[in-house]
């Protein structure tokens, strides 16, 4: 068994709702606002589509941080989706914290379609947090990490 020996780079999965945050990410691009390439975005219709299973799956497969972005509370395209997401993620994050998973590996941010700047800043700060936390060791699946 041999462990991958490249220098560690964080891997961050961002779930973005189609209507606000994904558009916010696009706007960050349109405005050429830089954020690290470690962030990979998955488009979902709404933040309420994000199943805790997806988040755990990302960690299992090697993600070091997972961020969920949705419309600002009250602005959900589907009126209430992000409210549900908010409760679900709060509970999930609390449980992860309870199990001793480092605080900050998971985050929720509300980013509107107009907030390209905020999107880039959020991603920069999130990557920074993850870099400071280091590699995800507590929610990893060793089978996915060894050759």
């Amino acid at each position, binding site marked *: 068994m041999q462990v991958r020996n490249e220098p560690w780079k964080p*891997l961050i*999965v961002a779930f973005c709702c*189609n209507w606000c945050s*994904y*558009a916010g*990410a*696009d706007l*960050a*691009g*349109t405005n*050429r*606002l*830089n*954020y690290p*390439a470690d962030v*990979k*975005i*998955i*488009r*979902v*219709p*709404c933040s*309420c*589509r*994000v*199943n*805790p*299973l*997806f988040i755990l*799956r*990302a960690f299992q*497969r*090697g*993600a070091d941080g997972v961020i969920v972005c949705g419309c600002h509370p*009250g*602005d959900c*395209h*589907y*009126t*209430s*989706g992000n409210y*549900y997401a908010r409760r*679900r993620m709060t509970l999930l994050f609390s449980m992860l914290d309870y199990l001793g998973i480092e605080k900050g590996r998971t985050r929720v941010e509300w980013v509107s379609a107009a907030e390209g700047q905020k999107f*880039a800043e959020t991603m920069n700060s999130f990557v920074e947090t993850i870099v400071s936390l280091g590699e995800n060791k507590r929610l990893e699946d060793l089978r*996915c990490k060894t050759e």
Partner: protein
Amino acid sequence: MQRIGVFVCWCGSNIAGTVDVKKVAQTLGREPGVVFSADYQYMCSQSGQDLIKDSIKQYKLTGAVICSCSPRMHENTFRKAAAAAGLNPYMVEIANIREQVSWIHKDMAAGTEKAIILGRAAIAKVHLNAPLIAGESPVTKRALVIGGGIAGIQTALDIADAGFPVDIVEKSPTIGGKMAQLDKTFPTLDCAACILTPKMVEAAQHENVRILAYSEVAEVKGFVGNFTVKIRRKARYVKEDVCTGCGLCTEKCPQKKAPDEFNLGLSNRRAIYIPFAQAVPKVATIDPDYCMMLKTGKCGVCSKVCGVKAIDYTQKDEFIEENYGAIVAATGFEPIGLDKFDEFAYSLSPDVVTSLEYERLMNAAGPTGGTLLRPSDLKHPHTIVFVQCVGSRCDEKSEKGVPYCSKVCCMYTAKHAMLTREKYPDTEVYVFYIDVRTPGKNFDEFYRRAVEQYDVHYIKGMVGKVVPENGKLKVQASDLLENRQLHIDADMVVLAAAIEPDKSARPLATMLTASMDTNDFFTEAHPKLRPVESPTAGVFLAGMCQGPKDIPETVSQASACAAKVIGLLNKDRLVGNPCVAHSDELMCNGCSQCANVCPYGAITYADKEFRMPDRTTAVRRVAQVNPAVCQGCGACTVTCPSGAMDLFGFSNNQIMAEVDAICK
């Protein structure tokens, strides 16, 4: 195994500048299932699209991944191109390598690597894509407007003018609503009846409008374009199509002690009555609570005097069922009950009135014939205290009142104060307020006129207590600006009671599966962008039922609402979004959690019989999604513990495949 084509766009140098597009195309070309891979300068150009179309045909592609700009930009373009080549448009996925790669990353190596990963994720998703076909449903070209106030009337008239039949269901014997009870309207001071009653008549005479007054919605089934509504027609005990509205019966009826709702109980009417002179339909109604004939079987005067034999004591509630394509909720409002505001002595003294009652006291058709007389002794009041925000803007934790601003009180109080001062210059008028809110065309000017021209005493402060004493109302108040206590001996106190949605709104919302906020106002589909639609497709909102608003706002919302309805009814068929939820009935527990979170009421339950593997049958309650109503948010899919509920186009497995591909 899918046969996937990968198309990498240069976007001129927009992408190719920071992403090695050739390398992306080559690398992705080696992914399992990819049978064709190419890069091209402008994929969205005609020739780019042709490349996609030709490749689909030549390589018998079952799926396509376009690595290009954001799907928000060209997803539709590429889907159409695919469809033109015979590929189901939902077999196309976009990897966003411009907005999310080339435009934000400067390093070619990092950009290329990320582009490849995003491409891989899209390929992984396409592997699990299935062709989707949008469902279609016909549209019943008829609208239902619930509520016959100004909002409902205006909506109905606009829809009717566009050529679609409309039914107005109104729970009281006449349409007109609250506006019919008003005296003058701010800020122009034109008489409410003068502008409203022509509309009422227009509605009555419009060939496309049917007025179902004294009726209520009993049951709503179906979905956008295809509602079936059961309407209860309450028994009037008067044949509506026979009664001429001559009013003879209402004069001869011996029972004179029924409180007159139209005058808010400030006067009495007969047991058989026509609410007001311009009522539409102008038909008498028997109040079964007061009619001696109905209660004891002894009387029958009205029947004897009726020349056209319109009276029918045996009438029963009837139900009619109609199909509609769209439903408008225009259920309006009512002032809140003041039983929790004993400090203002509302229940202790008849001279403490609500603003709406004050409207009736000022109204020429009101109980005092338009002369301002105080109810207790029918004398002219000389000192009147107006109290603002009674029940509005209350602390959310307090047991009484509502948390929001009722929005219209400041303006109608200014109107009342001004009209009072104009008609009776000897009257002192005090207005106690928290803030005066006058954002509207000519509103602030109007208010300033009240203060400056009519010398209304506006005092920033709250009234603490009103005590009836020796025919006077002792008002204890504070003046916050002067920081002093005030004691005023008033003849009348007028309370600007907060408004709240009509009580009928909540049960109606349940029937419509339309969502409501905690204050029982209907919620709009989007607070900014879809303000006249309910999240439940096919249900629209007009007037106060959506939130406090004044008459011009109500009318404009009503017309906007009508425009939306017309837009819907104009369509022959509705094409749905195929990316909707669906439930695997074999795995569904029927636990109802999904329906609880569905903002659209798209989920219903049915008892279904299942053949078990051991050849027995079992009946189970399972969820069923109406694809015409579902908007595809996915809230239900995460609520479902068994994973029975999934979303087409964004399935659990598709999203997990993307996660896996990204984290590989």
